[in-house]
């Protein structure tokens, strides 16, 4: 592996890790605060991609399409919470798994009904086209770099939101002692709605960012959801910091596994193990720490 390839892969790994973090943080927040398993997060990732593609086409501007798409995402997330999830908080996990699985089927097939089965391709916004020279001899696409930076900035903003603001305080309190903050007069239903919207929009934004990199297709959120669930489990359910570390680890393992393993073990075996590497890492971490990295 040459140095330039190595640098490129580090950036690819960072990018995958950041995107996974955006998706995983939604799942882990919803679990931490509401004690709910949400398999519909993958559907929101996909909706993000489709909404941005449609909004961009309608306004013929990526920069107008972005806020429109996010607004539409917020509406969808609110509808999901108000109509379905709200009724599931006190239910056993199997009900939550099945209802959100059902939602996922509805969204995936609903997207087929609206947008058809063919992948929707999105252009990279003009301002972010081309590539930039990171180091002498190492060129990297600007858009991918922008995605990583933007996702990273969102992560930092989220950190401040959770650790420094009143909403963040309520979120942390809600995760720790649900009944207590309810007794203190906090509108818990509203807090839950906010948390779900926040998580859902972050997932949807990940889908939007992915749009121009890989085409937007129905079911595009499913594999991402599964990887995000792995991050959530490795990081420790409900832990945002844990999800971040896990997402970086998964992003790097997956990216480097796909490059190095086929070289080391031959195309067939290497690719097979590269597909599994994330799960192998997860199994190893769980044998070491059954409740994830964030547990003590």
């Amino acid at each position, binding site marked *: 592996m040459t140095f330039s390839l190595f640098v490129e892969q580090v950036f690819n790994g960072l990018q995958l890790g950041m995107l996974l973090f955006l998706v995983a943080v939604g799942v882990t927040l919803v*679990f931490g605060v509401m004690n709910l*398993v949400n*398999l519909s997060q993958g559907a929101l990732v996909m909706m993000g991609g489709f909404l941005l593609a449609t909004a961009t086409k309608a306004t013929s501007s990526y920069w107008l399409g972005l806020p429109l798409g996010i607004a539409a995402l917020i509406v969808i997330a609110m509808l999901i919470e108000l109509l*379905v999830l709200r*009724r*599931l908080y006190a*239910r056993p*996990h*199997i*009900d939550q*798994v*099945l*209802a959100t*699985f*059902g*939602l*996922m*089927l*509805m*969204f*995936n*097939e*609903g997207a*087929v*009904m609206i947008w058809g089965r063919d992948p929707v391709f999105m252009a990279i916004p003009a301002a972010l086209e081309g590539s930039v020279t990171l180091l002498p001899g190492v060129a990297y696409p600007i858009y991918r770099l922008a995605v990583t930076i933007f996702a990273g900035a969102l992560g930092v903003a989220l950190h401040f939101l959770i650790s420094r603001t009143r909403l963040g305080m309520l979120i942390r309190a809600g995760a720790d002692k649900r009944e207590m903050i309810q007794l203190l007069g906090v509108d818990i239903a509203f807090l839950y709605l906010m948390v779900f919207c926040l998580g859902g929009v972050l997932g949807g934004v990940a889908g939007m960012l992915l749009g121009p990199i890989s085409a937007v297709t129905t079911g595009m959120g*499913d594999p991402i959801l*599964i990887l995000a*669930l*792995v991050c*959530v*489990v490795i990081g420790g*359910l409900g832990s945002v910091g844990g999800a971040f570390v896990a997402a970086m680890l998964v992003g790097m393992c997956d990216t480097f596994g796909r490059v190095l393993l086929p070289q080391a073990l031959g195309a*067939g*075996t290497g*690719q*097979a193990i590269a*597909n*599994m590497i994330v*799960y*192998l890492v*997860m*199994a190893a971490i*769980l*044998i070491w720490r*059954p*409740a*994830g990295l964030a547990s003590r």
Partner: protein
Amino acid sequence: MNPMFRNTILVALAAIFAAAPWALDEFSLNLVTRMLIFGIAAMGVDLLVGFAGLVPLGHAAFLGLGAYAAGILTDMGLESAFVVWPLAIMVGALGAAIIGGLSLRSSGLYFIMITLAFAQMIYYVFQSLRAYGGDDGFALTRNTFAGLIDPYDSRAFYFLTLAITLVIFLLLLRVVASPFGVALRAARDNEARLAAVGLPAFGYRLVAFILSGALCAFAGVLLANLTGYITPGYGSWPQSGELLMMVLLGTAGTIWGGLLGAAIFVALSEVLSEVSDHWMFYLGLLIVLRVLLAGGETTKLLKRLDPRRRADG
């Protein structure tokens, strides 16, 4: 349920199942066989969901393990079902022992997600088997029965599946009523007390996990023989979700609920897919509604049909 009522239902069911091969065309008969096969898998999943209180989101992996083991063994020249099937089921049980041993260290949500992750791992193994078609899968020559049964006769295969399902159903009823079943439920309800009595919850759960994995593998073997084709899709995670759906549709914690749920699910997807190309949407909608409209609708319906209950109001 009152015994008279129950017996009437049982006799009626037996008559329906016995008459099915003559009343139905081949396509519909295969559909009923499919219901029975998924019923076996769903009963196995119900053992975990309904009795051990654990929700596995990766049992399709065992369906796939059974199918692939059967397919590969058959491809290697073993044809007899008497050899291939037990071996394939053992592969499933072995897989379940390993995955169960690792996943049962956790519970609740962790268990859901860890079983899902292990199933994904196995799914990618199937996908990477280039010699067996990779992503496309491969065809299976149906296993033979030393000339006793013609494996290509739909009726014969239906009756074979029916007999297997019935035996498994009765065995499972015994299992959940046995001291083992009691301990399993005790572990679900109060693990600390079970431990205080000196019984290991982990051991009971692991045995239940292996048993349910083996049942799913058996279903995988049967399904592969029915369809004559094996793909990685057998072990995909939506398939795992569907197995849970079947258990819930039929009512968890009853064993027969698995059979009922599988029948409803197979019938539902068949009817919906004929009505609309977008049947998955309506299936999803039905599941969401089913969960939201409280639990046990099917059971309630059955209870309402029960004359004694109705008299009680």
